[in-house]
């Protein structure tokens, strides 16, 4: 059924259709609307039986989910940014214990400086936590990926993070096709845990593993993620059969047929990029897009296959590896090992900085000329940056960076230095 609703609400309704049994909630923008909506459904009795638990921290949220999942319940929570980092220890733990928790990450920047707006720093900071990480391009996909996430995670006994851009998607009212309960039930069987805490068959979960077996345990976790690479396309196909649309999968290419330049990106920015690509195609530019839906496990082969024919690759990402450049681009480069092509890293949209068609068009044109630096910061205000650098050179106690910059751009009243 088509609906015009907020992205958070759409995700909440989709999660509810998955019949979660335990939901843990701790408020943090921009995921809050999702758990609020779910809480209301539980309180109203429309989502039942289900326990909705208001916990005291994200650390507790993930921990409650761990306990619930280990006891055999389908468990869900949502978080973002600082919240994800605060629960980091438990995030790793859930994966290590093989508990198929599904968590929405409404992607948001990490402080300091504190910033509530969108980028991918949070999810990518935990890219090696052992979770499957899916990135939604739009609210329809966000909704669909949650349904697939439960199926996938429970099949593999692995937790799944569904990442959607904070505010840009979570707070956007859009048209979505909300599935019916029958469709979801047909796609998603009840949770049949591989291991469960049960007095009838007691086991100890979470043993200490020493040097004699730790490597093997880690290898097995890796092997399981590799298995996801095979399962995900199959589940996407099955999804299409029931729900009638393409959603999920490993990667999506757009107009890459004869593309000399291919732009790689994740999340909502793909839409903007596609618009730019369409425009450039109209003027004869051989440019295409490779959207990455699955970031962990990283679909090396699909990415390599998608990019193989191109002359250059521009990886545009909303995250950065300070001191190196890009995170996504580093991963993409691994897929390109042995292929001779130009590779550019573009850091864009950090902390909610708007990514405009205009900037992208300019960027891609420069890329086609191979006039880009290896690492480019899109729309960086060099004047401000240079001013601060000079200031720091001049004064040992040059003051806090963020506040200085705000003052420079006039948000805060200027003060003489």
């Amino acid at each position, binding site marked *: 059924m088509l609906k015009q609703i907020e992205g958070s609400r759409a995700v909440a309704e989709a999660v509810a259709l998955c019949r979660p049994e335990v939901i843990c909630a701790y408020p943090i923008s921009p995921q809050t609307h999702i758990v609020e909506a779910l809480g209301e459904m539980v309180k109203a009795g429309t989502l039942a039986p289900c326990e909705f638990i208001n916990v005291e921290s994200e650390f507790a949220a993930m921990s409650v989910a761990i306990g619930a999942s280990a006891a055999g319940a389908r468990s869900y929570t949502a978080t973002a940014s600082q919240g994800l980092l605060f629960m980091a220890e438990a995030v790793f733990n859930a994966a290590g214990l093989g508990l198929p928790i599904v968590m929405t990450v409404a992607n948001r920047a990490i402080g300091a400086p504190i910033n509530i707006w969108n980028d991918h720093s949070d999810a990518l900071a935990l890219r090696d936590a052992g979770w499957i990480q899916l990135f939604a391009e739009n609210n329809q996909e966000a909704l669909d990926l949650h349904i697939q996430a439960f199926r996938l995670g429970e099949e593999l006994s692995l937790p799944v993070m569904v990442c959607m851009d904070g505010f840009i998607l979570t707070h956007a009212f859009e048209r979505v096709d909300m599935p019916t309960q029958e469709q979801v039930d047909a796609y998603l069987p009840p949770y049949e845990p*591989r291991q469960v805490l049960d007095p009838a068959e007691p*086991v100890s979960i979470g043993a200490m593993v020493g040097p004699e077996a730790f490597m093997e*345990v880690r290898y097995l976790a890796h092997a399981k993620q590799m298995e996801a690479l095979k399962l995900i396309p199959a589940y996407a196909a099955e999804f299409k059969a029931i729900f009638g649309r393409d959603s999920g999968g490993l990667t999506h290419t757009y107009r890459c047929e004869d593309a000399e330049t291919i732009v790689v990106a994740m999340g909502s920015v793909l839409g903007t990029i596609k618009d730019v690509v369409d425009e450039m195609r109209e003027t004869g530019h051989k440019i295409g897009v490779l959207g990455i839906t699955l970031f962990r496990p990283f679909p090396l082969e699909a990415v390599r296959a998608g990019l193989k024919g191109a002359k250059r690759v521009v990886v545009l990402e909303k995250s950065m590896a300070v001191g190196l450049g890009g995170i996504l681009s580093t991963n993409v480069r691994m897929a390109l090992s042995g292929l001779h092509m130009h590779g550019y890293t573009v850091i864009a949209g950090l902390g909610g900085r708007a990514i405009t068609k205009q900037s992208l068009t300019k960027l891609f044109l420069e890329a086609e000329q191979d006039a880009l630096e290896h690492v480019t910061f899109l729309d960086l205000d060099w004047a401000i940056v240079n001013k601060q650098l000079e200031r720091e050179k001049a004064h040992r106690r040059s003051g806090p960076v963020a506040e200085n910059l705000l003052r420079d751009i006039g948000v805060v009243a200027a003060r003489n230095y």
Partner: protein
Amino acid sequence: MMDKPFAITLDPGSSLANRTGSWRTFRPVYVDRLPPCNAACPAGENIQGWLFHAESGEYEAAWRTLVEHNPLPAIMGRVCYHPCEGACNRQHLDAAVGINAVERFLGDEAIRRGWRFSSDAPPSGKRVLVIGSGPAGLSCAYHLRRLGHAVTIDEAAAQAGGMMRYGIPKYRLPRDILDAEIARLIDFGIELRLNRKVSDVLAAKAEGFDAVFLGVGAHIAKRAYIPAGDANKVLDAVSVLHGMEEAGPPLLGRRVVVYGGGNTALDVARTARRLGAEEAIIVYRRTREKMPAHDFEVEEALQEGITFKWLSTIKEAGEEDILIEKMALDEKGFPQPTGEFERIPADSVVLALGQEADLSLLQNVPGLSIEQGLVKVDATMMTGHAGIFAGGDMVGNERTVTVAVGHGKKAARAIDAWLKGESYVPAAKHELATFERLNTWYYSDAPKTVRPVLDIIRRQSTFDEVLGGLDEGNALFEARRCLSCGNCFECDNCYGVCPDNAVIKLGPGQRFRFNYDYCKGCGICAAECPCGAIKMVPEEI
């Protein structure tokens, strides 16, 4: 079955594969230590053993355990001076366990319920003659009978019991009790021949006996020379107490002086009061502290109106009074005459200065030797003449019923061995269960039960028993005050406190076993064993 993740998820209880016994440098072992009560009992009773059954209300089992060593519990429960209680570890907590009272309860219970002795030993075909039916003789006869031998007791007096009948007043040992316990022995198949004074032991043995046990007691009173006027009555304790068992009680007059400081002196004085004497005075040459009589008996005597002249000797006995000289203790604690004299009125003087045995039947027994009035016996109670054993008052100066019963038992076992051509070796004794070995935290605080005592007026006028018995509730309580020193009483502490579950509980009456596969040797079991029945020993290298 679950599809368990490798290494992270493990099967329950699988740590049994890890034998932590390899950590151990000391190992706990269960031991049985000798409880101090048992160690102190002259009759060699397994006191703790019978208390164990009494604790759970198994009185018949308790009595049967008791009579494995002593056939006279109802008597012993009255007349024994209970050295067991003096040794009892519980005295360091609150008060000693009232062992004697429980013993009497069991003895009385056995009489009331008609419990009888039994023995499953096959008849040996051997015959043993026991001379004397006092405690030593009865005990020896009983144990021989238990071991399958035929026993005949020859008793010189008209009734059996020896000093128990002719020396101990009725108010301490009612005669129905004495009769009942003797009757049970007769019923057990012991032949008793009364009024048969043996004058030649070898001749008596020759009448078809394989061995002889002598238990003739010490019935001859020791005399001291006291110048006495003709009219004054000077008697001895033995004949006074003996006379109580005959038709007419002895005539002692209104004012009776008893000379001596032993229990017999007290018995006579207290008997005199009950016979109507207005005054009964005990004259003793030393102080109360030095008196050989038991303190509780002195207490009871004082309650009954007996008076004492400490540090006094009788110089002469006149017609209506006696002359006593005051004594003073020298620096060594010996009484020395002071030259101060006093006259006190007296109608009679009873000498309670000790007894000697009549050893006339032992003349011309080759090898048998007598020293200072006592028959010499070896460690197995055998005299110098093979096959002739002796015990009781005639072999030692510690003359109590309990000692005699112990002698009888020991002699019986030695006779049994001798009859088989073996020599008797007593079982090695366990290490003593001293108070320091106990962990007394675990015992409930519980003061001793007070036994009922006969009303004072009746005590001064009748021969009713002074000290009452315990009822069942009290007896159970008293039994349960036992600390079970040195012997497991299945409190489950070791089983419970082991952090490694390395103690196996074998079930009621079966105690426990250590599982050395897992025992790390921490020693908590030994430390927390209330009764000290676990010992830590270094691991063998």
